[in-house]
């Protein structure tokens, strides 16, 4: 096993554990709701997720129908099922299924 990989996993996993556990012991609601820290916390999650969504979709964007067709179907599949079921898991699976279905057709 690569030492760097294990070190990376331990750092990221340790921080994940800290992010998930430590706030259960703190009362962040006592913080000023409009303070800079509160705004930072509130914005970091959406910024990270938006960035990653764009970064993962960007390489798939192309003018070729055979490649853009499955992408459009996948995105529409996610949108449709999310607004129908309000479930991240179901929307993810539906998007992948729609992508695969159109990929098979074109």
């Amino acid at each position, binding site marked *: *096993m690569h030492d760097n*990989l294990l070190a*990376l*996993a331990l*750092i*990221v*996993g340790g*921080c*994940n*554990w800290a*992010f*998930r*556990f430590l*706030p*259960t*012991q*703190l009362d*962040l*609601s006592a913080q000023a709701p409009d303070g800079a820290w509160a*705004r*930072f*916390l*509130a*914005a*970091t999650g*959406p*910024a*990270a*997720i*938006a*960035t*990653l*969504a*764009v*970064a*993962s*979709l*960007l*390489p798939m964007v192309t003018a070729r129908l055979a490649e853009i067709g499955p*992408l459009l179907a996948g*995105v529409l*599949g*996610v*949108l449709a099922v*999310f607004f129908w079921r309000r*479930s*991240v*898991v179901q*929307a*993810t*699976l*539906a*998007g*992948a*299924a729609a*992508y*695969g*279905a159109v*990929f*098979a057709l074109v």
Partner: protein
Amino acid sequence: MADPAQKSSFSHGLVTAAPIAMGYFPIAFSFGVAATRAGLTGAEAVMLSVIIYAGASQFLALALITSGAPFLVSAFTLVAMNIRHVLYGPALMKRAGAGAGKRYAWLWAFGLTDEVFGAALGALARRRAQFSERFMFGLGLGAYAAWLAGTAAGALAGGGALEGWPVLSAALGFMLPALFLALLLSILSRAQVPVIAVAGTVTVAATLWASPTAGILGGMVAGALVGVLGLGGRHAR
């Protein structure tokens, strides 16, 4: 509806985790396949799932490792991705009410992923469960077990397992973009639009101008700065 006088059990948590487990298994399977395809051994793939246990981070870790990104850049990027999790604990404990047990939170809180948090909060809000640490253990363990089993199955199948199944391979390859898009929809609100718009725009610009790594870092920083400046994100959950 749960009996308000009776705290929910471990098995109740496991049952509540069933939909998450059904979704986690195929995503983790695709991670196991992608990891071995990227050159990791099966043990390394499972190790990442055991220790990190964050789907998006794990997929991105593969991209960073295979792209040869510097160690510190990789670590910072992956850690930054999960800062949003600091919001989950306080929100959950607030919903659980004053006096809710958290003696073993150091253990069950490790399983507080996006989906587990959402399921727990939803069950408590709809009064389908009464908060207890046993319930949280059941909910977290069901999801975690599915994640590990899926990773192991995918790693066992190997990177070449899907070569004869191009449609399935294509569908699994869209899992990650689909997951991010669905997560984005789940946190979307009018207050977050400036943050999301700036993060997305900067990601595209920096990716095209410099590199994908610069795009990811630039997008996150720019979006968070928009929030600090007070242009969005005040009403995040």
